[in-house]
């Protein structure tokens, strides 16, 4: 069944969409989109390390992104620079370092475009296992930290006062972000992963009125984007990552009509 590259890509995309749906909602709620970008950019360095040490790409990306996230938290504590400047600093310098490192690895043939924008041809059965097992783990952990994470998203002090330990939940969530980037990089590409997190969640916000409803719509939106994107990638020979993102964007635009109606109703 998984002999066909398209079936493999489809299943990989489905697995990714199930995880980016709920995580993406938190990215939107907690205003972490640029943070997601920074982690994703640092993934390039992780890929380079994986190739030069002949190491698993997903694991290497996960570790690199986690280290960058920890580094960022330290920088936030120790410097007076605003958060977005620090994010920009880390995002672009890790992308720069990653690309320079690729330049040195001339003995390996690299598909940089595939890394940046995703490549459905590159998904093998092994990657499928990583996506589905890794994705299931991410969702289980997210379920476990749901209460403190969600409560502190609404109001940090309330969560802290009522004994939920939001600081720990935040740290674990950061690792989950690194993990989703690690498992979806081959599929969507590191420049577009944050899009896959944010766009379906933004679409979902327009059509839902409760947090769980938003997560459900976000997952549905992600799945639809994967289907539409991959089919168009197959038929029109477009790169898979951008095609998925364009599909997600179209769904978002359609959802805007719905919000227009609700605003009209309110008035």
């Amino acid at each position: 069944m998984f002999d066909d590259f398209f079936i493999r890509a489809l299943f990989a995309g489905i697995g990714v969409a199930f995880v980016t749906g709920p995580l993406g909602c938190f990215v939107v709620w907690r205003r972490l989109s640029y943070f997601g970008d920074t982690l994703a950019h640092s993934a390039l360095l992780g890929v380079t390390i994986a190739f030069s040490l002949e190491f698993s790409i997903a694991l290497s990306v996960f570790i690199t992104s986690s280290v960058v996230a920890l580094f960022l938290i330290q920088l936030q504590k120790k410097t007076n620079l605003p958060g977005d400047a620090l994010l920009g600093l880390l995002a672009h310098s890790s992308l720069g370092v990653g690309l320079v490192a690729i330049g040195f690895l001339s003995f390996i043939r690299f598909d940089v475009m595939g890394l940046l924008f995703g490549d459905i041809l590159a998904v093998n059965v092994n990657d499928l296992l990583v996506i589905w097992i890794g994705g299931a783990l991410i969702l289980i952990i997210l379920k476990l930290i749901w209460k403190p994470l969600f409560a502190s998203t609404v109001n940090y002090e309330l969560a802290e006062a009522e004994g939920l330990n939001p600081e720990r939940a935040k740290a674990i969530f950061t690792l989950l972000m690194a993990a989703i980037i690690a498992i979806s990089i081959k599929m969507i590409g590191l420049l577009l992963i944050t899009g896959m997190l944010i766009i379906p969640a933004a679409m979902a916000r327009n059509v839902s009125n409760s947090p769980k409803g938003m997560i459900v719509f976000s997952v549905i939106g992600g799945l639809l984007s994967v289907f539409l994107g991959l089919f168009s990638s197959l038929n029109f020979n477009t790169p898979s990552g951008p095609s998925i993102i364009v599909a997600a964007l179209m769904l978002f635009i359609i959802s805007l009509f719905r919000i227009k109606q609700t605003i009209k109703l309110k008035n």
Partner: protein
Amino acid sequence: MSDENNILVRLKDAGIRQNDKWLVKGVSLEVNKGKIVTLIGPNGSGKSTTAKIALGIYKEYDGSVEKFTNKIGYVPQKISIDWTLPLRVADFMVLTDDLARSDINEALKLTGVDHLIDKSLGNLSGGEFQRVLLARAISRKPELLVLDEPVQGVDFSGEIALYQLIKKISEKLNCGILLISHDLHTVMSATDHVVCLNGHVCCSGSPIDVANDKEYKALFGDLASQTLSIYEHKHDHVHSNDGDLKQKN
């Protein structure tokens, strides 16, 4: 002052310093089961800060804080819900605890907003939102309630009802309440112990003791003498003959 078994939280000489400036300093107080302790004081006197020290929100502080319960209900002074987060009253009620639908309904009924359960939090008025906040805090049946200006934005008759409710809750649940208010007349009638803050503890004791204290009078001046006077509302508009309201300049 009290039986050791009844104590819920005790601050000893607690204070917090930020950039070499004391936000609040040398606060000692304790909250016991079934008792209401009220913090009063002018803006910036450290009332909310003191409450946050007691709650454990601040990790670095001077002095000592001992907490003897983990069942805490908190009504923060300010809370803003972002539009990006769709949240109904029903979702907000189970924010920190899983509660039965009947408990949620009961708490909302007590504060008079059970009809709003499926409304979106962003569409509530200030007073309605405040009632939901209070309902959420009491629905968990906490041992310690910390209420930071719990009736702000509530209409006057509602204000009295909510203060009576707070008193009733402390008796029914036998929980201790740390209340922050600038509303002197209600404070004086419903409280067991008053702590008057102005960066440090000016005076503390029973409401009558505090009302007679020199420092309290110095701090609140005219306001203090109004404590027992009837409620006066300030007119910011005039009534014209045809019943229309006009804004006063």
